[in-house]
């Protein structure tokens, strides 16, 4: 599979504080902010019907809980392996959105990493970065 390119952000799940306090453990029931996990827009048929990446022209393979992806921050080349633990992001809310580092850009939201995973490859305060997602 060729790497899928787009944008990435981060989210909280599991026990937490503040607005995250009610986040729960995600669609897979295993999600925790401190673990190397991610949300995937096509984690199931029900998930896909919410996130609808196809409406943004993004073709995304269906992969279930526990599937391993590798996400690269295209701003700095840092890479992290994570497993699917939730459904998201809701890609169709952000169709056409771009994030760039100089001339390197990503378009459309394709993955949300847990805080632990995102902070390994980017600063949490950056919020949104161009990325690529692969299976190896």
């Amino acid at each position, binding site marked *: 599979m060729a790497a899928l390119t787009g944008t990435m952000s981060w989210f909280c799940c599991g*026990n937490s504080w503040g607005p995250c306090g009610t986040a729960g453990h995600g669609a897979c029931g*295993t999600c925790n902010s401190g673990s190397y996990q991610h949300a995937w827009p096509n984690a199931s048929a029900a998930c896909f019907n919410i996130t609808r990446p196809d409406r943004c022209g993004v073709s995304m393979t269906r992969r279930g809980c526990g599937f391993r992806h590798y996400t690269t921050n295209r701003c700095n080349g840092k890479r*992290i392996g994570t497993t699917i633990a939730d459904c998201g992001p809701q890609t169709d809310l952000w169709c056409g959105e771009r994030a760039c580092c100089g001339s390197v850009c990503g378009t459309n939201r394709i993955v949300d990493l847990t805080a632990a995973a995102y902070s390994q490859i*980017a*600063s*949490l*305060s950056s919020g949104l970065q161009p990325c690529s997602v692969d299976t190896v």
Partner: protein
Amino acid sequence: MTETVDRRRLLTNAVVGSAALAGATALGSLAPEAAFAAGDQAIEPGAPDPNFAEGRITGISAGMLFVTGSDMALWRIRITGGTSIWKLRPTTFDQVAVGDGLYARGLRLPDGTLAADSVWVNIVNVHAHIAAIGRNLLHLDHKGKRIVGHLVPGTSAARYNNTPAVSDMSMLRVGKHVQVIGAWVPDTNEVEIATVYAAA
């Protein structure tokens, strides 16, 4: 990887009393963007990261944050001269308070403490709809609950589909979806807004 290891070694040395940190910046920036580990991944995908902490601050003493994790884990987080601290904006240790929430990344030392590279205090990343707009306020609908977002003059910025961050919030519209990076005001439903991401 070499740079990261060397940098972390310097941090560790600084924590245990060496003055080695004075030369750390010679290896590059100590800002969060430059502080992330590279190279082979030591933690298995799906597993908890022992070098990452989350929770609320229960005590502060002599460069140490005492934190109770939301899973009730107890953390001792060492702040060094090389630790970058974010609380709405890059800031200093004296701005951190008991009761604040945090995420921290660093290096676990043999004594169980976490020598922090980066600490993000009260940071939230909220995906919400704009329910109402007031003077220096955004009322946000977040998973059926209301969050009050305060625009902080001189700090809050908007990015409209990858435009440079601007202070002009006039393109925000009620009903539109936004992503907000901000700092939670502890024990309230309020956040101070750092950046709003919105469609143009």
